[in-house]
């Protein structure tokens, strides 16, 4: 198994490099001069123009005079040594500080959502499978389809609309660190986490259900029943571990969609995570921030896939002993 993990980890590095080249490439090679774009935006906002000198200065500041490969290597190295690509153009805050401040928030929101989803989805999926094609199954499947097809910012807006107009409640302002004021922290995080969890658990319920149905039809479940085991043991000991293998894998991949939702909901609920920053930076054409934060989000996603792969090998003895 060590070999398997080692191979996964080794494969992770070229994947990261390729991802960073793609992000860099998208932002640099596509038509349009970055400096012009930034100045154009500033000029449009300020109502004035810009001079050749300004362009030259900005180009030098952003390191745009270097050949592209050098620019890339500089940026890539800064991602490794902790500079994370310098500083924000708008606020001149160093990216290392931006990331240190915002990454934990996004991580927390993601973890809450995933935990909440697993707690809800696995039992519901099992339940749905055990009552296949009976009414509890239909109700759950309907809820799952709704959860998966309603855009989460629309659900969030509906929720806010209802709260604001019906009970006169509006979401608490400001954000508190969990270590400082856990109650306030949870008050803020609970709504986006619940909304994200609806969609995520809808997906998890669906795959748990279909995985469970598949496992329940397996020969070894029949063997377990023929041994005289009760339903509880058949489900808990003989079925669930087999269901969790695909659920972990597919769930891990779906976190990618979850992250997309996080980006949107952070903006809607005013949660100071990576998603809020990357959107503000995108609107403000703050290229260094967009580039490095996109890399962080992708790194997060790819890293999670790696962890899932390794976790998988622990759950499945067939991988563990090969």
């Amino acid at each position: 198994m060590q070999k398997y993990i080692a191979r996964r980890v080794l494969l992770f590095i070229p994947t990261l490099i390729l991802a960073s080249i793609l992000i860099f490439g998208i932002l640099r090679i596509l038509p349009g001069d970055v400096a012009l774009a930034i100045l154009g935006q500033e000029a449009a906002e300020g109502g004035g123009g810009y001079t050749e000198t300004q362009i030259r200065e900005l180009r030098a500041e952003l390191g745009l005079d270097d050949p592209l490969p050098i620019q890339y290597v500089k940026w890539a190295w800064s991602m490794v040594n902790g500079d994370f690509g310098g500083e924000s153009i708008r606020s001149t805050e160093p990216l290392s500080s931006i990331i240190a401040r915002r990454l934990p928030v996004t991580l927390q929101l993601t973890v809450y959502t995933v935990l909440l989803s697993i707690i809800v989805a696995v039992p519901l999926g099992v339940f749905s499978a055990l009552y296949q094609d009976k009414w509890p199954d239909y109700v759950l499947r309907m809820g799952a389809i709704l959860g998966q097809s309603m855009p989460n910012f629309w659900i969030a807006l509906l929720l806010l609309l209802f709260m604001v107009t019906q009970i006169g409640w509006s979401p608490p302002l400001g954000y508190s660190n969990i270590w400082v004021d856990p109650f306030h922290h949870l008050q803020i995080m609970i709504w986006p986490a619940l909304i994200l969890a609806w969609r995520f658990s809808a997906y998890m319920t669906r795959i748990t259900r279909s995985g469970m149905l598949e496992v329940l039809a397996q020969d070894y479940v029949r063997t377990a029943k023929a041994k005289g085991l009760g339903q509880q043991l058949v489900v808990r000991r003989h079925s669930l571990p087999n269901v969790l293998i695909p659920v972990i894998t597919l769930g891990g991949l779906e976190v990618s969609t979850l992250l997309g939702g996080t980006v949107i909901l952070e903006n809607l609920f005013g949660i100071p995570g990576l998603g809020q920053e990357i959107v503000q930076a995108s609107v403000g054409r703050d290229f260094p921030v967009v580039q490095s934060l996109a890399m962080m989000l992708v790194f997060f996603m790819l890293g999670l896939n790696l962890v899932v792969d390794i976790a998988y090998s622990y759950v499945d003895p067939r991988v563990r002993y090969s």
Partner: protein
Amino acid sequence: MGTLLEVRDLRTEFNSEGGIVKAVDGVSYDLQEGETLGLVGESGCGKSVSALSLLRLIPNPPGRIVGGEVIFEDQDLMKLSERQMRSIRGNKIAMIFQEPMTSLNPVLTIGRQLTETVELHMGYSPEAAVRRSVELLEMVGIPDAKSRLSNYPHQFSGGMRQRVMIAIALSCSPRLLLADEATTALDVTIQAQILELIKNLSTELGTAVIIITHNLGVVARYADRVNVMYAGKIIERGTADEIYETPKHPYTRGLLGSVPRLDVDREDRLASIEGMPPDLDRLPPGCSFVPRCPHADDHCRAEMPPLSSKDGSEHVYACWKGHEFGPLEFVQAKA
């Protein structure tokens, strides 16, 4: 020896796209204590379903047991509660399945899969269960049993897995063992080993065995009596010798007496009867074998013959013309 099992008019149906399939259609037989009974037929004739029905393990939906009695040790299994039924499964009646590769749970150790049965039915402590499991693995001939308890199924070969299955099945010294095509998926040499093992252990423990197979060679060698099934019904029953020497039903005769051909391997030769088994959801009104029977006449087409014999002997057959047939001229060498 007394009667261990009496099956009376067992009926099991499945819902399918084409309608209701009568997979087991009024099957009756009995089994003495310690006896080995063969249940023979082509695939799809209902022999596996009838065995699963005894344990009430028919997946519902789409299947359900619609009628009949299964008297085991003086109680009707069909009338027991699910809880009472569970105390019989794996304890008094155990089953071995066809696919050793998929019948063991891939994510649980062999030890766990062995110990849970004795813990459940015999109230063993975890330590006692482990000791018992080691004994069982040694009993079925698995070397180095103690260290193999922590292994997973994929670390065993097919034959070894089937030995583990036998160990699990015999762990509570059942009164009845159902072996559903237990050797079909294995190599020929391994098949013989496994069957010998089942035979020896069941004799030792006094366990009655129902061997369910499509392979007449297996039955000839190991069974005391034989039930031949066709289209959900038993169509002939007798001792193994009677069935082999003077089969009365054209189907049995076909199974046994197919002309030997050198260009077909032995497995196929035994089952080479003209035509295909009928669709169980579209049975003809009379004898189900009519479409494939060279001797069929209008009487056969109109009325299903009962399972009986002309001379009142125990060798019974469901054929209007069965009494006309004498011993097979070409008797298949016993495998």
